[in-house]
C-alpha cells in the first residue's frame, strides 16, 4: 500500500520534472543563439518574478486566473470531455460579474456584493459551458468543435455589447463597477504595492480544494471519473452518462467563469474587451502539465505564470516571445514524457520488486 502511494507520487511528479529539464536545456540553446548567457537570463527571470515583491505579486495574480481555467479544463478531462471553451467562459464570467457590479448600488457592502458578483461569474461561465454539454447529450455534437465555435460567438457577442452599449468613450472597457471589489494583497502586505495581486487567489485555492474533494471524495466525483474512464461501465453502474456530461461541462464553465473575478473585482474593476488574454487556452496547458489533479494544476498555474511574468523581466536581452516558445516546449515535453518517464520508472523499479 505504502509503496503504491510512493509509486503513484513518483509517476505524478517525475514526468513534469523531466519535461522541465528538457525545456531548460532547450531554453539554454535558445538563449545562447541570441548571444546571451543562459545563467544570466535565468537569473534575471527569477529575480523579476520570485525575486521581488512586485514581480511575485504579478506571478500570484496571473496564476490565479490560470488556476481557475486549469481547474475548469481538468475537471472536463476527468469526465472525458475536452473543454476548449475556457477562454469564452472566462470572458462571460467576467462580463456578468461586471454587469452585477455595475447594477448594484455603491452602498451594498462587499460581503454581499462580492458573493453576488461571484454567482454571476459562475453563472456566466456555466451557461457558456452548459451549451456544448447539452448539445453533446441531445445531438451528439462533439464538445471540442462546439466549444471552439462558441469562443468566437461569445467573445464577438460580448465585444459587441460592450462596444455598442457599455463602453466608456475612447476605450474598450465598461465603467468601473460600483460595488463588489476584492481587496488587494497590498492592503495587508504593503510590499505588494503596485502589483495586481489580490485576494481572489484565496478563492482559487478554495476552488482547487473543493474540486479535489468533489472529484475524489464525493459520489458525484466517483461517477464523473467513471464516465471519463469507461462510459459503458458507468452506465452499467447506474450512472446517467448524459447527465454527467451536462453537469461536468456546466461546472467546468462555471469554474472558468469564476476566474473572471480576478480581473474584474480584484484588479481593474471593469470589464474590458480581451482581458482574458489567452488565459483560457493556457488553462489547457496548465491542466496537462498539472496532470488533471487540483494540486498539480495549482503548481502548474504558478509555473506558467512565472514564465509569463518572467518574459517581461528578460525582455531587454532576449525577445519576450522566447518565453512563449519555451512554454510550448514544456507542453510538448510533458505530453511526450509522461508515458516515457513512466516506463523508465517502472523498469528501474523492477529489480527491487522482482
Amino acid at each position, binding site marked *: 500500500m505504502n509503496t503504491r502511494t510512493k509509486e503513484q507520487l513518483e509517476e505524478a511528479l517525475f514526468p513534469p520534472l523531466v519535461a522541465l529539464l528538457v525545456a531548460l536545456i532547450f531554453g539554454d540553446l535558445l538563449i545562447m543563439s541570441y548571444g546571451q548567457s543562459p545563467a544570466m537570463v535565468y537569473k534575471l527571470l527569477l529575480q523579476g518574478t520570485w525575486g521581488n515583491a512586485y514581480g511575485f505579486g504579478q506571478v500570484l495574480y496571473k496564476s490565479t486566473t490560470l488556476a481557475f481555467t486549469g481547474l475548469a479544463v481538468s475537471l472536463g478531462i476527468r469526465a472525458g470531455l475536452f473543454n476548449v471553451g475556457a477562454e469564452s467562459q472566462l470572458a462571460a464570467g467576467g462580463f456578468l460579474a461586471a454587469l452585477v457590479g455595475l447594477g448594484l448600488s455603491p452602498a451594498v457592502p462587499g460581503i454581499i456584493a462580492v458573493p453576488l458578483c461571484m454567482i454571476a461569474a459562475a453563472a456566466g461561465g456555466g451557461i457558456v459551458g452548459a451549451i456544448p454539454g447539452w448539445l453533446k447529450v441531445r445531438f451528439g455534437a462533439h464538445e471540442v468543435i462546439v466549444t471552439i465555435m462558441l469562443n468566437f460567438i461569445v467573445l464577438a457577442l460580448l465585444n459587441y455589447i460592450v462596444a455598442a452599449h457599455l463602453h466608456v468613450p475612447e476605450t474598450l472597457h465598461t465603467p468601473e463597477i460600483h460595488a463588489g471589489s476584492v481587496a488587494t494583497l497590498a492592503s495587508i502586505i504593503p510590499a505588494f504595492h503596485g502589483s495586481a495581486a489580490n485576494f481572489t487567489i484565496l478563492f482559487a485555492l478554495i476552488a482547487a480544494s473543493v474540486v479535489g474533494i468533489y472529484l475524489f471524495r464525493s459520489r458525484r466525483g*466517483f461517477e464523473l471519473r467513471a464516465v471519463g474512464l469507461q462510459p459503458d*461501465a458507468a*452506465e*452499467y453502474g*447506474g450512472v*446517467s452518462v448524459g447527465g454527467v456530461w451536462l453537469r461536468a461541462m456546466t461546472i467546468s464553465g462555471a469554474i472558468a467563469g469564476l476566474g473572471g473575478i480576478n480581473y474584474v473585482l480584484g484588479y481593474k474593476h471593469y470589464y474590458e474587451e480581451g482581458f482574458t488574454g489567452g488565459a483560457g487556452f493556457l488553462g489547457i496547458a496548465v491542466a496537462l502539465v498539472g496532470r488533471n489533479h487540483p494540486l498539480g494544476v495549482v503548481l502548474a498555474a504558478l509555473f506558467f505564470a512565472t514564465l509569463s511574468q518572467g518574459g517581461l523581466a528578460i525582455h531587454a536581452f532576449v525577445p519576450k516571445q522566447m518565453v512563449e516558445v519555451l512554454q510550448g516546449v514544456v507542453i510538448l515535453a510533458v505530453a511526450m514524457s509522461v508515458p516515457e518517464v513512466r516506463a523508465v520508472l517502472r523498469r528501474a523499479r523492477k529489480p527491487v520488486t522482482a
Partner: protein
Amino acid sequence: MTASSVPTGNPAIRMTGIEKAFGSVRANRGASLEVQQGEIHALVGENGAGKSTLMKILGGLQPPDAGTMEVNGKDVTGWSTSDAIRAGIGVVHQHFMLVPTLTVAENIVLGMEPVKGGRFDYRKAVDEVKTLSHNTGLEVSPDRKVADLSVGEAQRVEILKTLFRGAKILVLDEPTAVLSPPEVRDLWTVLRGLRDAGGTIILITHRLDEVIDISDTITVMRAGQTVTRLKTTETTPSEIAKAMVGRDVALTSRDEAGILTTPAHGGAIGQPPRDDEASAINVTNLCVLGSRKTIEVDGVSFSIRAGEILGIAGVEGNGQTELIEALAGLRRIESGSVRIDGKDVTFRNVGERRTAGLSHIPEDRHRRGLILDYSVADNLVLGLQADFVDKGLLDTDRINANAEAQIKAFDIRPPVAGMPARNLSGGNQQKVVVAREMGGAFTVLLASQPTRGVDVGAIEFIHSRLREARAAGKAILLVSAELNEVLALADRVAVMYRGKFVAVVPASEASEESLGEYMTGTRKESAA
C-alpha cells in the same frame, strides 16, 4: 506457402528462458515453447499464466527481458512486428482488427493493395482473395461489407488476411470463444487443411475439449512458466487440467469432453415451475431493438421462480445480449413488461432496478463490469456508490472494509484492495464482478457469460457460487455460449434463436444434440 526444407527436428519456433515483467508483475518467468513445423500446437493455461505475453513476444509486439527465441533455426530474439510478419508469423487476435465499412476483399488486401496505374485495383483484389479463399477452403464473399458478416465469417476474413500476408506460422488467440458449434467444426477443418499443407498453428485456448479435438502437441503454462509439454494422443483432459491448475480438479463425466465444472448438482431439476407460482422475475412479450434498429428480442416471455436457474442457450448474436441489457435497464424496452418481485420495473433505470433486487454480471467485464483504472475497492462498490455515502462524501472506511470482506469471501488475488483492477488476471477480475453482484442482497441475478475467458479454478468457484445462490432461493437467468455450462447449471433451458425462445425444456430432458438443432434453427417449436 513455400515448402521450406526444414529438416525434421529443427523446430519452427523455439523460445527458451523467456522473462518478461510489467512493473512488479512477472508475466513470463523462464517460459519456453517449442513448436514443430506442420503441427497444431495448443498453448493452454489459466488466465494470467502468461500465454498472451509469450505470444506478444513471438509476434514482436514486446521484447523479452531475457531469453532467446528462434524461428526456423534463426535467432530472432527481440525482433519487431514487421520482422515477424516478414518471417511469416500471423496473429489472429481475439478481438477482430477489421474495418467494418470496407468490403471483405478490401480488408484482406489492406496495406498490400494491388495497384494498377497508381490506383487501387479492386477487381484484382477480389480475384486474389477468391483464389486464396479457394485454395485454403476458407469461404468468404469478397464483395460483402465486413459490418454485415457474422463473427464466424469475420474470423475467416482475419485468417485470410494473415495468410494473404504470407503467414506460415499462424497464432490464434481463443478463436472459438465467439463461434457456434458448426462454425467451430468448419474452423477445425480449415486448420487441419493448413497444417497438412505444411503450415504451423499455435492455438491459445482454455477449452480442453478443443485441445483434445484438434491439437497434435500441447504446452501447458502456469504462473509464467512452462509446466509441461504433452503429446495429445498420450494424455487426458484431467492430466492437462491438473497441470494447468497445479492440483486435481474434479471433472464430471459430461465435462470430460468439455469445460470444467464441479459435479454436485444440488438443486431439484426437471420441475418447470408454473408461471403463476410466486416468480421472482416475470417477463411478458418483451420486444427490444438492437443498435441498428432491428428487432433483436421478439416477444419473449418467461418467469423464473426463487431458487431456480433458467439457462439460455443459443449461438451468440440471437438477441441474448439485447435481452439481458433490456432486463438490466441498459437498453430501451419497446413493448412488453418486466416485473421483479411483483414490481413493475419496465420503465425503471439501472439504479432503481438494483434497488428492486436485481443483480447483473455483465457479459463483458472490460467494457461494462469494471472500471479498469479504479481500484478493486472502488470497483466493488460500482453501482452501489449511493449506499456508501456518509455526510455527503464517500465513506472510504466502509468502502475499504467492504473490499477486505469481499476479497476474503471471494478469494480475490492478490488480496490488495488498492490495486487497479487492470492489474488483476481475468479470473480475478471476474471474481471482483461476481463478488459485487453476489456478495450482497439480491433477488434476481442476470449472469451473462459468467465464466467467459476465466481459468479453470475460477470457473469452478463461480459455478459453486451460482449453485449456492440457487440453494439460497435466488432466481438466476444464466446466458452462456458454453452449452455444457448451461446444461450443468440450469434447471430449465431456453434456446434463443433470432430473438425468440424457440424451445424451453427441463435441463434433464435436454441434450447437446437436441439443443444444437434448435440453436441452429434446424428444428423449430413454440416455446413451452
